[in-house]
């Protein structure tokens, strides 16, 4: 239905609709009508503010703010602030850390503290979790000795740098990680080691897939939009219904259909084998990989390309092509010089729309993408649900959201959000 398991169905009537109030003159500048109009909008604005915008804001806040370690180890961090980051931080730091780790263990925050330190320096989790329990049994004396006795890792300056980094309340760390960067011992920004550079490539893949899907939709959608726009009205209505049925069909149904069609023992492979094009033992892997993602996403998003193209093409008189032909232009020449330029607004609207929807896709890649067909949304879900690295999920989401916002503004400029039409 309405295609939104992940997709808003929006169709643009470019140039057809003119807002009524643009035609009439603005009704003066008195305050009362302005207040009345605003008071009608206010309930929904407040509702969306609370149920949608606030959740989004808290999610983005997580990508730059994290007070867990700062709240649990305030004294340790204050002392570490004066440390140069090299060598032994000194007994005062050890004593403060020992006391505060025990306190964190008592009030139940130790696990969360350990997870955050572990994210900066993998392996620290078990050290941090184990330490308070063992400290209680440790003999009196310098806490440095006691901590080193528990784990030699406490003697390494990297461990203390990790605590100091994890203790920053406001941090750009997650955004750095989201673009495969990190800070080294001296605080300079450096690239991650090659085997850990995954996000930039994934963003690139997401944009490449979105671009490919947009191109495929344009390639497939342009001819049928043309056919529909210049068919007799009754036939055009039927053809339009054929485009709208998939558009209104549940996203999950369409994705499931493609799995059924494309799997190794599925209908497409059966047909290919029956036709003798593919050997029975060499059936093609069409799903749970990038092919599956591209095919299913193109199918899901094609109506979003066809409908804006169709509404623009309906405004282009078919007679112009005949006129061009009678003046001696070949079809290709006439199309390129006469028809195509007039459909560019529709091409722009449809392409932007498909691209915006494609870069945020989650469900389809998750179900038909396998390993190679995963996009950035799938990784956000992974960090939300599996690795529980919410700061990083927030940062990846923030970057994705910023890209969508830029495209949305472009869309608003090219098409005008007010002229969006559903159907």
């Amino acid at each position, binding site marked *: 239905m*309405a295609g939104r398991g*992940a997709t808003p169905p929006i169709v643009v009537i470019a140039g057809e609709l003119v807002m009524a109030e643009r035609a009439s003159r603005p009704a003066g500048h008195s305050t009362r009508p302005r207040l009345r109009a605003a008071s009608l909008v206010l309930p929904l604005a407040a509702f969306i503010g609370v149920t949608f915008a606030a959740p989004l804001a808290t999610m983005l806040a997580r990508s730059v703010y994290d007070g867990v370690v700062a709240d649990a180890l305030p004294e340790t961090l204050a002392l570490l602030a004066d440390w140069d980051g090299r060598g032994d931080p000194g007994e005062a730091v050890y004593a403060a850390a020992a006391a505060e780790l025990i306190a964190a263990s008592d009030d139940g925050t130790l696990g969360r503290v350990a997870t955050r330190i572990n994210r900066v320096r993998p392996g620290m989790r078990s050290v941090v979790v184990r330490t308070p329990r063992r400290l209680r049994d440790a003999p009196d004396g310098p806490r440095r000795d006691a901590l080193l006795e528990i784990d030699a890792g406490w003697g390494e300056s990297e461990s203390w740098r990790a605590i100091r980094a994890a203790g920053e309340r406001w941090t750009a760390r997650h955004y750095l990680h989201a673009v495969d960067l990190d800070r080294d011992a001296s605080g300079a920004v450096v690239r991650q080691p090659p085997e850990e550079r995954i996000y930039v490539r994934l963003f690139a893949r997401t944009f490449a897939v979105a671009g490919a899907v947009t191109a495929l939709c344009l390639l497939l959608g342009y001819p049928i939009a043309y056919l529909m726009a210049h068919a007799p009205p009754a036939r055009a209505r039927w053809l339009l219904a054929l485009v709208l*049925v998939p558009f209104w069909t549940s996203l*999950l*149904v*369409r994705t499931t259909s493609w799995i059924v069609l494309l799997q190794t023992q599925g*209908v497409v492979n059966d047909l290919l084998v029956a036709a003798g094009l593919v050997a029975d033992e060499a059936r093609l892997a069409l799903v749970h990989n990038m092919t599956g993602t591209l095919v299913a996403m193109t199918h899901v998003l094609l109506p979003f390309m066809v409908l804006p193209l169709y509404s623009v093409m309906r405004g282009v008189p078919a007679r112009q092509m005949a006129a061009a032909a009678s003046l001696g232009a070949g079809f290709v020449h006439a199309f390129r010089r006469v028809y195509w330029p007039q459909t560019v607004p529709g091409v722009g609207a449809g392409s932007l729309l498909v691209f*915006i929807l494609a870069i945020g896709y989650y469900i389809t890649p998750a179900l038909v993408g396998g390993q190679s067909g995963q996009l950035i949304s799938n990784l956000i879900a992974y960090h939300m649900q599996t690795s529980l690295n919410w700061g990083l999920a927030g940062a990846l989401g923030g970057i994705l959201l910023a890209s969508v916002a830029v495209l949305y503004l472009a869309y608003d400029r090219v098409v005008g959000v007010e002229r969006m039409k559903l159907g």
Partner: protein
Amino acid sequence: MTRIGRIVFLAACALVFAFLLAPLLVIVPLSFNAEPYFTFTEGMLRLDADAFSLRWYRQVASDPVWRRALGNSLAIGAAATALATALGTLAAMGLAHPAMPARRAAMGLLISPMVTPLIISAAGMFFFYSSLGLAQTHLGLVLAHAALGAPFVVITVTATLTAFDRNLSRAAAGLGAGPWRTFRRVELPLIAPGVVSGALFAFAVSFDEVVVVLFMAGEAQRTVPREMWAGVREEISPAILAVATFLIAFAVLLLWTVEWLRRRAGGPVS
């Protein structure tokens, strides 16, 4: 275009339509498969009556999990639609008013749930609603789905209002009707088709939504798409195809209703 060019063009169009419809058309007969396979058996190709059966439909209809899912989908969808339609219609009236200040910014805010990638909305809502104790409740899902559906109501009603003659409201006011009476007796009846199709969109959004449900629903709130997701991910069974066929029929019904409303409204055919 030359004759051959025209034939090639029509063939290409036929292929694209086949691509659009084939997945749906294949699923429908397969849902009547008597065997637990996802491909046509020889019996089905011979149109052997024994090769077809309603077993998957019976299985779905008698399964308490699917029945609960359908109940959840309908209840959450209906409540979210009511909320989104009421708030969205009001907002569209305000937005279409010539005196509306900061229209662009307001429109941006109201549309934002529609353009934000669902995974980001879902993740944010999960944290926020959890902290309010609304995660894993029906109310939480209703609020979330209402927010996602409201932009669709705003857009359809705004589109209807472009054809609305504001003089009618002025005339009603001039004849002594208050704002509420003007709305109920003059404005609402005229924009009703837009409101109803907006409501259908909002319902469809909720009925099809799975990402927010994945994050926020507990066992007791699982909806039809959520169960389909589980079915596709875990143990894909032909019962899924029976549900899918049901949803396709539902989609055709919704489409037909929206188109019927559009024609009644006399708006632009699109």
